[in-house]
């Protein structure tokens, strides 16, 4: 069994490295790009149309 203290130290070390990376000037390179708004619009519009169609069909 490993020592939990060693696990904590390893974790803190990795966390520090990552946060430095994310806060650096090139930090944006380590992020995933936002979902394009058009995707949200397509999903919402399709859902709206399907809901309207189903309400008409089910009544």
């Amino acid at each position, binding site marked *: 069994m490993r020592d939990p203290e060693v*696990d904590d130290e390893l974790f803190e070390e990795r966390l520090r490295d990552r946060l430095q990376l994310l806060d650096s000037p090139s930090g944006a390179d380590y992020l995933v790009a936002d979902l394009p708004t058009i*995707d949200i619009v397509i999903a919402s519009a399709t859902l709206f149309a399907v809901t309207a169609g*189903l309400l008409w069909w089910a009544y």
Partner: protein
Amino acid sequence: MSDSPDPESPGDTTVVNGRFDPTTTDLPLIPTERIWNFWQHSAVNIGLAVATWAFLQGAAVAYYVGVKQAIASIIIGYGIAVLLVALAPCMISVKYGIEQFVGLRSTFGERGARVVMVSVSTLLAAAWSAVLAIMFGHGLSTAVNQIFGLHLSETGAAASILGLMAILVSWLVLARGPISVEAVCRAISPFLVIIVVGILVLVFTKHSWSELTALVPIGGVSDDPHLNFILAIELNLAGGFAWWPNLGNLARLTTTSRAAFWPNWIGVFGASVVAAIVGVLAALSLQVEDPTQWMIPLAGAVLGVIALSIICLANITAILSQGYASMVALKGGGGAFFRRTPWPLLGAVILGPAAVLVFFPSAVYDNYARFVSWGAIVLAPLCAVQLTDFFILRRRRLRVSELYQPIARSQFGYWNGFNPVAFGAIAAGALTYALLLDPVTYEPHGLFRYTTASLPAFLVAGAVHYVATRLLIAPRGIGDYPAR
């Protein structure tokens, strides 16, 4: 995910094959550490969706409405809820690679996020595990009665003891760590798909479409069918919101935002909808609400017992996937204490309450609609607060380093690690829900017949969080909210 854990400590997932595995910690993941593309995420999502709870959902809907309105209510309810949960936890987790409940620190504060995690993730996992274990007990009692000609009560002590057995077996598998969970779940999913298709074929060989659409709801013909339709939509909204605790941490492992968003439409929407509709057809054609009672009348004694056995096993895999997700959330987002807690003990924390609940089968299993409603009363407002906070107030920008600072130094420290505004918004949403649909009696009130309960709860919570944050939090420079 295919690597094996460190043999020196099999229950510990942070070290895999001698190297540190960041996916099992609450570290922010960088893009090269993401392991799932669009199709891999879709496969996992489908595996999660095609579980026995879809049958329970379908059967519960069939209590209120006939086939056409059931299909409409399932697609509408799940569609709206899945759109919201595919945005709220998923987009934060995929963008920054952060664990779902770590992301919540920006909204609720560090201690607040922990309260949300324990109450939502852990309690719901315990409750779902109890429902699935009781279903296991019902199913196995039915199978044993059929095979040995016994007359064990499907709701008596035997079913409870079998349910307890399901919990114990689940705990034993969970205690061995994530690899065994993944292997067991992967093995059972194809059989469930076969059962779903099999039920569909059997129902349609015995009934025409016009016969099916003429069937009355299990609860009987209502003198207010519109209200029953809205109750069915509400049930499905609640069923969709129930995915909230699970989806963020799956999205965290995906390579792009599109790979995080759209697979939810294939899995927890598409696959769940299909399985729930199959559940509706079976329940209505047999006029039986308990899914464990469908198999033998539909498929005959031999095939029915085989299908029932698979369903029983599938209940265990569903307990495992639910329990595992909660354990990872606790281990990752629960701070140093839970990070150090051995895997078997964490399993006991999650499954312990379920082991007690299996001895009250009627209270749990026969009140499925109320049970889902108890989840939605918190989850719909929670989803709204998170969505409003990240998409509107923060305009999709978050300083990740602040999430990991000590409370005294963090911009997300709020008041002693709690943001009372976010909790107030949840309370306002929950109150709205309770005023429209009594979660204890399941009696609707007031405008429910036009609005449902989850949607107003969602809107009220989001509005309260927006206004109160703008008036009380942002002007004080707390919470790292951008200026308007």
